[in-house]
């Protein structure tokens, strides 16, 4: 089972988060914290040596996912990784997911026996439910620029929400146009039908898009993840807003 390590400046925050995670994960889930410094860990801060010990305490060949709050917690975790033997390092992932949401998503997934890639992926998507739920009360402009991941490098995910206005929705020809535009960008793009709850499916597969059953009036969410995510989304937004170039509608 993949082990989890929670790294936080605050001991209290980390301990409370463990309680939350334990509510959704089986007791076999290996879970450790590295949080706080000084006497009784009462000062805010992180310690790479404590992180190393936490990782070792939950380590198995299934690997360890490390979640951090911010700033120096990330630096300390990276230093910890540098100080661990390379055989262990291969099986340890520092995950840029948000701490609370990510820990809970990771706890559930790891508890199901998933491999570390799946646990990492689920943690990364952990903001999706909140974003989706609040999307009705958020203005379109804010939604269009809401990043789902805080950047530690090039991986920024953004989601836009659009309504299908063309008469035939996401049937074969519009779907083919979407695939055409999507495949011209070297980014991960998925589409979800928010109205009937299908997806996410790859925006680069015609067959997959058609399974969404997108009708006129349905709301779809397009998520792009990668260095040119915003350009891809702009192009796709233009396509949908132009009714996929279907003038007869």
């Amino acid at each position: 089972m993949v082990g989890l390590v929670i790294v936080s400046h605050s001991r209290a925050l980390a301990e409370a988060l463990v309680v939350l995670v334990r509510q959704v994960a089986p007791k076999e889930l290996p879970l450790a914290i590295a949080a706080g410094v000084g006497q009784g860990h009462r000062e805010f801060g992180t310690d790479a040596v404590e992180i190393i010990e936490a990782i070792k305490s939950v380590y198995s060949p299934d690997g360890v996912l490390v979640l951090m709050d911010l700033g120096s917690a990330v630096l300390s975790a990276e230093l910890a990784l540098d100080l661990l033997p390379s055989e262990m390092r291969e099986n340890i992932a520092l995950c840029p997911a948000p701490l609370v949401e990510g820990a809970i998503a990771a706890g559930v997934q790891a508890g199901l026996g998933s491999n570390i890639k799946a646990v990492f992926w689920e943690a990364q998507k952990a903001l999706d439910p909140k974003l989706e739920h609040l999307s009705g009360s958020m203005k379109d402009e804010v939604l269009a620029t809401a990043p789902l991941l805080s950047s530690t490098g090039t991986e920024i995910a953004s989601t836009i929400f659009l309504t299908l206005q063309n008469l035939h929705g996401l049937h074969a020809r519009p779907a083919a146009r979407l695939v055409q535009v999507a495949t011209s960008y070297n980014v991960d793009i998925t589409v979800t039908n928010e109205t009937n709850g299908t997806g996410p499916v790859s925006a680069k597969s015609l067959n997959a898009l058609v399974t969404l059953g997108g009708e006129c009036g349905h709301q779809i969410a397009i998520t792009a993840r990668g260095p040119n995510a915003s350009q891809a989304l702009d192009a796709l937004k233009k396509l949908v807003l132009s009714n996929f170039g279907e003038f007869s509608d």
Partner: protein
Amino acid sequence: MPISQDAVLDWIKNCAAVIAENCAYLIELDLAIGDADHGANMERGFNAILQKFPEMTGKDIGSIFKAIGMTLVSTVGGAAGPLYGTFFLQAGMKMAGKQEMSLEDWSIALEAATNGVVLRGKAEPGDKTMLDALLPAVEALKDALRSGYGIREALAESTEAARQGMEATIPLIARKGRASYLGERSSGHQDPGATSSYLLLKAAADTWVDL
């Protein structure tokens, strides 16, 4: 005259004293553009190092630097922990087994230490960080060596470069660390990390001035 193990330990003892003297000042700088704990964090770290002196006495300079690095990592708490920790760990790797350092050795150690900070923190010159004091100090020391300066002049040049770099952080807008959350409001304040770096390098120059 080379820098002996005892001279290195003297430097560190002086660092602890300088940090303690400037603790409130470093906190004040960090209050303006950070989370107000840089002075306290550094003091905690250097006090812990002082406790390690019995273990460090008699060890080679590389081991001394490594012990300092690991102590800072575990006790400082904020970003200065992994950053100064990496600084000393990298210096330690270069000075492994050495019982004394020449001026050239110190230049090599300082450069390796600073490169470690670059790789760890991923900051660039002008981001308003400790690197804005360290990078000029490294270059000035290398220039001084190339020009054939003795230890006193070389360290004076290096320290002066660090001081100017530290003061040059005042108008900068922070792009790393807590200060970066303040954006333009971080301008007009001297960076606490650049300040502590300058203080540590000045302590080295003051300690080794008569070598």
